[in-house]
């Protein structure tokens, strides 16, 4: 695990653990999660539904609903401050201002009884020293920025389409020019054509303001299109992470391989997809050893017993698989072919 704090890191998360406790059952939603992000960088966080992506995002914002959720341990260093130790007042100053979040479902993430203008100007009023009139003016500018006429500031959310609503949500998120934007499946609830538009808008604005972004998605295509780095989550853990190129072209973890295998490839002449066999484990009753071993095509007897630790190459490519181990132990063997051979064995 990378223990050194890079000074140019905007965000460093170390060993984040989040559980949900209900009816005496403990659900490990996020376990030992570590990641880092530089200014302006985009990280794609990939995983199936239930892998713990949204919980991770809420955890970074300290917004995990409690009860039932609870952050057990972990460090979230943001601009040199540990957010897990910050007071609630400090967190309020950070939310919507330095770190913003875009939620999955635009249909439900806007307050139905407030005008969209009010919802944008509210965040400006909270974090910036402006008059009401100035915030109203700024909120109209924000609407224009996301491609909605400023005159519609007085309209209510139900008067907008889904794509338009997500634009409003983006306007709220970017209104205070945050350094970090967490986008939780921002396009999943939208029509395909609208998805592309919203994604383009986000990319454009992010580049314009040099905002770092964590893009949560289960869409590998979106990641390839938008992200610099990628982290793949399975059952609450990051199983593989690294630069886009490393992970896509030099896939280490069998789960990641499975994900790629379940995508149709126009270039290959395979007749059928190769979906990963089995289902996500019950998070209240996770498998021993490697959490993926019951579904893993490469699993050996030891996988059920030993919990794999993250193995990181020099280029920062991490994999949490026992089969990756020999390669990393032998530091000379950074060679891609070797790794592939070992992983495939």
């Amino acid at each position, binding site marked *: 695990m990378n223990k050194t704090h890079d000074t140019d890191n905007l965000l460093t998360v170390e060993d984040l653990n989040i559980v949900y406790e209900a009816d005496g059952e403990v659900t490990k939603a996020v376990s030992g999660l570590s990641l880092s992000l530089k200014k302006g960088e985009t990280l794609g966080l990939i995983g199936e539904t239930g892998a713990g992506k949204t919980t991770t995002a809420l955890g970074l914002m300290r917004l995990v609903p409690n009860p039932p959720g609870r952050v057990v341990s972990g460090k979230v260093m943001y601009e040199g401050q540990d957010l897990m130790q910050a007071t609630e007042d400090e967190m309020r100053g950070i939310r919507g201002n330095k770190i913003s979040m875009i939620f999955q479902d635009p249909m439900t993430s806007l307050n139905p009884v407030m005008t969209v203008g009010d919802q944008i100007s509210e965040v400006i009023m909270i974090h910036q020293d402006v008059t009401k009139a100035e915030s109203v003016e700024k909120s109209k500018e924000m609407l224009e920025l996301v491609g909605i006429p400023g005159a519609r500031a007085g309209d209510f959310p139900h008067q907008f389409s889904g794509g338009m609503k997500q634009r409003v949500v983006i306007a*709220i998120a970017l209104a205070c020019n945050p350094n970090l934007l967490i986008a939780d499946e921002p396009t999943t609830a939208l029509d395909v054509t609208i998805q592309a538009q919203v994604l383009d808008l986000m990319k454009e604005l992010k580049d314009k303001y040099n905002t770092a972004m964590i893009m949560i998605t289960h869409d590998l295509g979106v990641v390839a299109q938008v992200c610099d780095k990628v982290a793949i989550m399975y059952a609450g853990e990051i199983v593989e992470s690294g630069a886009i190129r490393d992970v896509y072209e030099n896939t280490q973890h069998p789960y990641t391989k499975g994900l790629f295998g379940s995508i149709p490839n126009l270039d290959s002449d395979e007749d059928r997809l190769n979906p990963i066999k089995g289902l996500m484990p019950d998070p209240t009753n996770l498998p021993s050893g490697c959490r993926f071993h019951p579904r893993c095509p490469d699993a050996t007897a030891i996988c059920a017993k030993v919990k794999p630790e993250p193995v990181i190459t020099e280029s920062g490519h991490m994999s949490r698989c026992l089969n990756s181990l020999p390669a990393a132990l032998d530091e000379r063997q950074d060679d891609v072919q070797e790794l592939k051979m070992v992983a495939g064995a």
Partner: protein
Amino acid sequence: MHKFIFKRLILLVPVLLGVSLLVFAIMSFTPGDPAQLILGENAPAPAVEALREEMGLNDPFIMRYANFVGNAVTGDMGRSYTTGREVATEIFDRFPNTLILAALGTIIAIVIGVPVGILSATRQYSWIDSSSMIMALLGVSMPNFWLGLMLILVFSVTLGWLPSGGFMGWSSLILPALTLGTGSAAIITRMTRSSMLEVIRQDYIRTARAKGVAENVVINKHALKNALIPVITVVGLQFGYLLGGAVLTETVYSWPGVGRMMVDAIRQKDSPTVLATVVFLATTFSLVNLSVDILYGFVDPRIKSQYA
């Protein structure tokens, strides 16, 4: 919005006609001959028959109903068999008494119910929550006529602080209004709590928190406005019930309201008065419900724009 109100008013007409028909039909089963009742048991048969003819009692049902509606529209609800007074006049004399009691009861219910409900929801599972939920459960389980008697027992009979009935100045309002308000307060508390709990788990509340909105603003501005929309309906319904269904409380406190008037009329077999009071109270109830619908349109922008 005018279109919305207009449409609602139009829809009210068939409902009111239906209500009056229903009550008229029920009351027509009342045994006994009204003409005989008016003239006394020993009246000669021809005289009774003549009065029957005069009163239109020999007409077919539909004719009698049409007459009743025709007269009612012009404010003529018939005359009481027992006092001979115009029933409509009597109702309008008494209605302010019923209205003030219902209004006070509703105010008490809102003042208690809404804050306690919010407090319960925001401190779910705390002792405040459990104790107010138990109180609310007792409140909805208590028959209000019994509560009325118990309040009289404590505050009039034992302590002698407040009058036990009738109308003797403003102090007479306190016990009946409390009696009426308790049940409604309990219902409003439960409704506010569950509505609030529903709302604070909505995505837009999470959005507000993610914007850095302070928790008390999240609750009092973002959540409350949404949570109160269904509560308004319940408050309106309760007000309607207190207006139309305060019969028992008015009886307990010998309160000179319309409900008491109805109960007295039933005892005296004064069917025009019974008919008129029931129709009147049901109409009032429907009008209150209509007002709530309209108010709803003002509070919820989604409904407003539907009719804009």
